[in-house]
């Protein structure tokens, strides 16, 4: 009997949990469209996730950071490529990103920074071009996405369970709600100034 129980528990642990998704729409009030909102699953108690080996990328082209908003898992290294024929700089005034300043570098070169802590959000600026602005949102789980201009989003590969799903936007107040994932699960949000 005891052996059967051990076998059953072992099998349960060995099997992956059923994975679903969280999808829905974020309605952003007072801004041009509902894009650029980061939707992510907040910290899961007792669960940590290894930083990905692959670097994320932010391009600097035509005097614009691209993408404008980049969510990453804590520990991710972001490469900043200067794709312009002019010098660029990247720095952040935010303490959660250690107020890093990567200096100034020319076209074709890359400088990198590793987001070691949760940081919602690190503002990226360029001292050479004051109007340039972007955001890296460093979150504690790999379950995140950025909304499309119509506000729609889908976070795939989320195991079934109960989570706190959070929404952050560069110009609007953040929000969060509890979401139970069982297969494909819907959650809608509305945020405003």
């Amino acid at each position, binding site marked *: 009997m005891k052996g059967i129980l051990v076998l059953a528990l072992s099998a349960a642990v060995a099997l992956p949990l059923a994975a679903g998704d969280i999808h829905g729409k974020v309605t952003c*009030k*007072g*801004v*041009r*469209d509902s894009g650029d909102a980061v939707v992510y699953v907040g910290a899961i108690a007792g669960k940590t996730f290894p930083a990905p080996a692959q670097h994320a990328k932010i391009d600097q082209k035509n005097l614009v950071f691209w993408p404008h908003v980049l969510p990453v898992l804590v520990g991710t290294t972001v490469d900043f490529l200067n794709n312009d024929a002019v010098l660029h700089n990247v720095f952040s*005034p935010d303490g959660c990103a250690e107020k890093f300043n990567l200096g100034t570098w020319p076209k074709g070169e890359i400088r990198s920074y590793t987001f070691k802590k949760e940081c919602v959000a690190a*503002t990226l*600026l360029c*001292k050479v071009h*004051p*109007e*340039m*602005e972007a955001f890296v949102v460093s979150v504690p789980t790999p379950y995140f996405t950025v909304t499309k201009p119509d506000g729609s989003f889908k976070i795939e590969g989320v195991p079934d369970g109960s989570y706190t799903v959070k929404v952050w936007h560069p*110009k609007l107040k953040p929000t969060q709600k509890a979401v139970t994932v069982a297969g494909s699960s819907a959650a809608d949000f509305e945020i405003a*100034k």
Partner: protein
Amino acid sequence: MNGFKRGTTTLFLLLGGLVVFLGARPAAAVPAFSRKYQTSCQTCHSIFPKLNPFGEAFRLNGYHLPGETEEQVKQKAVSLGADAYARMWPEMVYPSSLPGNAPFALNVKMANIYASSHDDTGKQIVHNDFQFPQEANLFGAGTLGDHFSFFSEVTYAENPDGSGSVEIEHARLDVISAFGPEHLVNFRIGKFAPNLYDGFQEMWLMTDNGVDTLFAYNPIGFNGGTGLADSGGGVSLPARTRAIEMYGVAAHRLFYTVGISAPIGAGGPNGQFNNNSSKDFYARVDYKFGGMGLDGDSTGVTLPPENWRETSFRVGLFGYFGNGTDVNYAITDPAGNPFQMQQTSFRRTGVYGSLYVGDLNLIGVAVHGSDDLSLRDNDTGEELSSATRTYDTFFLQADYVIVPTFQVSARYENLRPADPSVDTQKAFNLNLSVLARANIKLMLEYHRDLHDAQNYQLAAVLRAAF
């Protein structure tokens, strides 16, 4: 000729002169905002340049829509710094923005002025002038980020002698919601029509003629002021000033303004802009009952879809106080002897009211003026005598929207000059305005001295804003 007759004739001549030569009037419809918000002139104007309640809120909000959101601004601004730089000030320059397109707009005005007046002998003089163009106005207006706005107007006017004149009529910078609750504390600096005259200075009236009995009265005279003056007279209410002003709206319905100003006129010696070192002071406080809040708030109010209509009453008290010491005006006594006169101090107190009932808007202003006048020897400048002279003036205007395309206005003006030998001046102004298009206006306007059927002006005016 006795004093009374001489005074009356002088008054009529001055009025007649004004009628003929004061044709140029400021315009104040700013299509730059139509472009920015991709919206019609009639969003803010019942008939340009007169503002409707929403337009008044837009103006008092520093050219931001009430509760403005990003998607309402169709012409995206040019960023002069990421928002995050605000947190880094003063290490980094505080962020700002520029209007997406050059924030300019033009008004042109064509006028056919048919005017009747008298010459020195009492003979009627009639002129029929094609003033094509009478003037053209180049506007610049917009916002610089959330807390600054600007407004400028450069006017080119054609003169009767064929020459032209260019004047910066307005050039001001506003700091919006500088601190405290939104809309409460704003500052303005520059050359402008003070908010002291909100609702009744000519740039906010639907008529072509301004209220000259308020703004063009000349208080200087041997026995006090006798009537109107085009320029060169003393200060009555300066329609535009160089000033620093604070203004705002509290609790949606209370409006206030205070300012320190220097009237625009002949400058002082050595290239000074102001003809003396004294500065004037003005203040006004209003309350609006009913209708849309002065900041655009409509909480608890049911407003009709016709945005020129509401049921409201706005009442205000205002004052303008100044000192004209050391500024000499040349006058003559009844015998023709020359003297100098100084308007050593002056006080203006007034009441303003605006009543909206459906399609009707009644506007009224009454002003009491008091001037301390110092009579001086023409050669030595030594004071010979001094006296306090008072005058009273008021007007009542009814604007009516027949339909948005056709609107009419009737105004009665009354001025009791300080000189007791001069009769009270009464004038009537009737206007029919037609919006041929939202930005093209035709006006037929009749202005008459009620003492003299031969002292009148009939103007046909075409204005276009683009």
